[in-house]
């Protein structure tokens, strides 16, 4: 489904270390390898560098040492602009909360996922109308009702609804890899499981691999594999 670096794994990290500019302590991360469509649960307590790791995997932060490669593309070898382009084309990202731009309506927030990538928009649909159709399908598939999808203003959405819109934005155009930073932590247990089930179902449909970060170990059962960040966090 993703004709890109056929033989390479989806994600590979080597000797990642990251030091904040004003800090002497560097965070060191164990090497990770993720196959195409594989779903990984990353657990670790607060302060273990989960968000930093996701920033590195998204190519937004540059590691102090080591390298990330996605679909065989090495981030260390790429320019920042090339990494931004790669992220737009192949990655989806869901924040813990406040995922949406309040001045755009829910549909526009989803379409923002294709705004910086022609390739991504082309994968979502051949025309403007079909891209919108795909956005609509995703929103409904992720459990939003039609009224909310088409008529609600972004500011009126509940946290659960916002996270569904954010997931739709991350998944539109079928990215190869979805990075999720505790997206369910603000949801109650029932909607948490429902949301996760729908999210993973959509990922399966697109063949999208997942790196899902959470401190809630009860969610690990939804994933192919779990890795703890705990031992790698200190150094």
């Amino acid at each position, binding site marked *: 489904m993703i004709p890109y670096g056929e033989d390479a794994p989806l994600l590979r990290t080597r000797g990642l270390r990251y030091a904040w500019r004003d800090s002497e302590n560097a965070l060191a991360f164990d090497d990770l390898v993720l196959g195409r469509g594989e779903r990984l649960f990353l657990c670790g307590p607060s302060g273990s560098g989960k*968000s930093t790791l996701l920033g590195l995997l*998204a190519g*937004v932060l540059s590691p102090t040492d080591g390298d990330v490669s996605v679909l065989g593309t090495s981030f260390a070898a790429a320019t*920042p602009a090339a990494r931004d*382009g790669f992220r737009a084309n192949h*990655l989806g990202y869901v*924040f813990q909360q406040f995922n949406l*731009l309040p*001045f755009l309506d829910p549909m526009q927030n989803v379409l923002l996922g294709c705004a910086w990538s022609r390739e991504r928009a082309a994968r979502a649909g051949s025309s403007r109308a079909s891209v919108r159709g795909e956005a609509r399908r995703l929103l409904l598939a992720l459990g939003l009702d039609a009224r909310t999808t088409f008529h609600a203003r972004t500011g009126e959405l509940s946290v659960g609804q916002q996270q569904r819109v954010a997931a739709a*934005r991350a998944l539109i155009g079928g990215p190869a890899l979805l990075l999720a930073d505790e997206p369910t932590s603000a949801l109650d247990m029932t909607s948490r499981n429902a949301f996760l089930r729908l999210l993973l179902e959509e990922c399966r449909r697109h063949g999208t691999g997942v790196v899902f970060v959470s401190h809630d170990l009860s969610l690990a059962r939804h994933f192919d594999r779990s890795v703890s960040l705990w031992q790698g966090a200190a150094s």
Partner: protein
Amino acid sequence: MSLLYLTLRSLGQRKVGVALSLLTIALSVFLLLGVERVRADARQGFAGSVSGVDLLVGARTGPVSLLLYAVFHVGEATNNITWKSYQDIAAMPEVAWTVPLSLGDSHRGFRVTGTTADFFRYYRYGRANRLSFAAGKPFDDLYDAVIGSQVARRLHYEVGDTIVLSHGLGGALLAQHADKPFRIGGVLAPTGTPVDASILVSLPAIEAIHLDWRSGVPLPGAATTSEQARHADLAPKAITAALVGLRSRLSAFAVQRAIDDYPEEPLLAVLPGVALGELWHLVGTAENALRVVSAMVLLAGMSGMLGTLVGMLNERRREMAVLRAVGASARVIFALLVIESTLLTLAGMIAGWLLLALVTAVTRDYLLVNAGLVIDQTPAPGEWPLLGAVFAVGVLAGCVPGWMAYRRSLADGLQVRL
């Protein structure tokens, strides 16, 4: 979804802050352009006090001094020119027209100018505007006077009122020409020139009121009535100055030299533009002060906008992180903020410009009548560079929050530290 669209929607989200920022810019642009407009128009009005006059002729003195007493009614002439000299000048082949000016009398603080009906034909002000009458017409009787708009307004005179002229220019106990009262025959429309503060009478009238006077005092015993004066010899013997129009401007220097070298009497001819330039030079300091104030106003306005933009930056960190996550580069973040400040500056400039147009349209008549200032509706040429400077400063100011957001979005990654 273009950056422009995102910026507009984002601005729409922050209406209050944006409105305040716009107001700051609009007001500073309004003040900046307003000061420039008033400055240019004051200068224009000054330079236009004697437009259309090629030479100003008087007794020999300094050029600025001649301009001051003959045109601006400041100070007094030390000498007159004889009627014969005036006629010789009028007879020169290069001369198209001449208008005599006879000064020295006043009425309640306003100066009286003795002249001919040609004054209304040839006098021009501003960009070649002719004098027009708000009421009445030029003098046709010996004892007719035409008054400027300011005289009419201050002294509440209208056509048909009777006035008495005073001998001399100042002081409370002036000798009055009470035996020969004048009737107001016309009121001029406002011009923004010294004419507004003038009382114009005919040259024979000046002769008539001085029939029994020698060396500034009335002769004892001799009392010619105003009716008897109509039959006396009222041919003028001397005038104070003359406005000269030439057939061709090219001959201005030749005629000027001929008048300066006039053998029978020491005369001076000046090109009004040159003398006005010298005079403006004297008041140029005030002009520079106005410019400095304008620059300060702009600086204050731009600091205001900068403050608002930087202030908004913090609440927008989440917006920046989301855009970064969907693939926007740090450069896009920079561009968003520069686009935003550019839009704000542009909108503020347009708003300030419209405000100025509105205010000048509304206050135009008031300023002309009360301040003698002719405010032009069309922008002064100096306004375009100013607008350009405002725009450049606005875009540059936008680079500051742009750069801050750029640095921050690189350092923060996708985390938002609130």
